Each structure stands twice: as C-alpha cells, then as structure tokens.
C-alpha cells in the first residue's frame, strides 16, 4: 500500500454479487455471448455422434436421423442455432476492435474488417450447403 499515516481509512467494500451480470443489460449480453460457447460444444458432440453413426453403417445413420427429429433435440438445436448465430455476429463485429488497420495514416472504419467476414460467412455457408445438397 502507499505511505499512509498510522490510521489509514480501510474503506467500505461490497463483495460483488454472484448475479452481477443481471444488473445491467450490457453485462447480460456479455454473459449470453460467453454462454454461446456451451452450445458450440454441444454442436461438436452432435457431430461426433453423427460420425459415430456413419462408422456403424446405414442403419445406425438412419437411427441418428430419427434422433434428430425428436422434439426435444429439435428444440435444443433451435436454441443452439440462436446462440451460435449470436456468437458469429458478435465475433465478426468485435474483430475490428482488435485490429487497428491504418491506411495512409487514417484508421480503416470497422465495416471494412467486419464486412469481409460476413461475406466469407455467406460464401462458406453456401459452399457447405451445396456440397451436402448436391454433392
């Protein structure tokens, strides 16, 4: 601590509540963004299950298709899709903050960094969809 007199005022401190993130909308948005990672992990688990079914043969693959039509699984995937898209949008929008690109002394507006990522998103998604639907 700094050089204090013999009676330093300790100050009154409040411990931060476990529910601090409910107190303000920016905090809640932040925690939702972080929670999206759980649904990202859930997607990986689903993918591993699908690969497992692929290995076991056509009957197992069909059973896996059935599993995906289960209403609970569908509901879970709807929620997951929301969170994963939320992750994508927040990710692309935050990238410009981390990269200070300068052209001719002026900082490039964020849209030039976020924009190409959205374009890439559309292109890549279209490519994946085409491969799976026509490949």
């Amino acid at each position, binding site marked *: 601590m700094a050089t204090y007199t013999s009676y330093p005022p300790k100050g009154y401190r409040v411990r931060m509540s476990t529910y601090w993130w409910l107190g303000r909308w920016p905090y809640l948005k932040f925690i939702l963004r*972080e*929670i999206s990672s759980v649904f*990202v992990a859930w997607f990986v688990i689903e993918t591993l299950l699908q690969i497992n079914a692929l290995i076991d043969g056509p009957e197992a693959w069909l059973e896996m298709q059935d599993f995906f*039509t289960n209403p609970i699984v569908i509901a879970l995937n709807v929620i997951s*899709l929301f969170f*994963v898209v939320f992750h*994508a949008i927040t990710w692309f929008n935050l990238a410009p903050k981390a990269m200070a690109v300068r052209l001719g002394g002026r900082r490039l507006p964020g849209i030039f960094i976020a924009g190409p990522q959205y374009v890439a998103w559309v292109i*890549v998604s279209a490519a994946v969809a085409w491969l799976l639907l026509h490949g």
Partner: protein
Amino acid sequence: MHKRSNEPFVWLLFSAGGVVAALLIPIHLFLFGLAFPLGWLNAPSYDNVLALARSPIGRAYLFVLCMLPLFHWAHRFRYTLYDGLQIKHLDELVNTFCYGGAIVGTVIAGYLIWRIP
C-alpha cells in the same frame, strides 16, 4: 520476476476456434439440426455423406470442425466459470476440466474420424 505468460497459446486456439465456429457451425447446425430433420430440404443419403467424410479433405475438415470449436469452448467457459461463479481460486480444477475436456474431445474426434470406413 515477470516471465511472459503462455496465455497467447490458448488465446490463439480460442480465436481460431471462434472463427471456425462463427463461419461453419451455423450452416451445419441449420442443415443437420433443423432443415434435414424437419424435411425442409432433402437430407443427403448415407452414401453421399460417407463419400464426403471419408476423403482426406473431408477428414481434415471434420477434424478442424471438431477440435478448434472445442478449444474455443474450453477457453471461454473457463473465464465464464471464473467470472460467473467466482471460483477463480479453483483455477487448477477449472483449467483441467476445460482444457482437459477439449483434449479428450479432440482425441475422440481424431479416433472416430480415423475409423471412418
């Protein structure tokens, strides 16, 4: 006294995983989680999917699709546990659970992908 942290290593994995998750997971989740099961679009047949998955590029693609997002989850969830549950003092436990879990998932993914016929 101040040795530079090795955090950049996991931060790189987190960032790469974030990019992969952002670009690829939405379309995969939409197709396999909603469009195919609900019949909005024709699901590819077993043979089609197998043909795509067993190719070298397909295997590499699947591995990246599984491994990087797992490390993205590990890093982000680790900090969520620190900030949300305020259990930073259990950081060894948290790190083992998060990064260990990601490593286990990666190993499983590698094994399964290797076993694709």
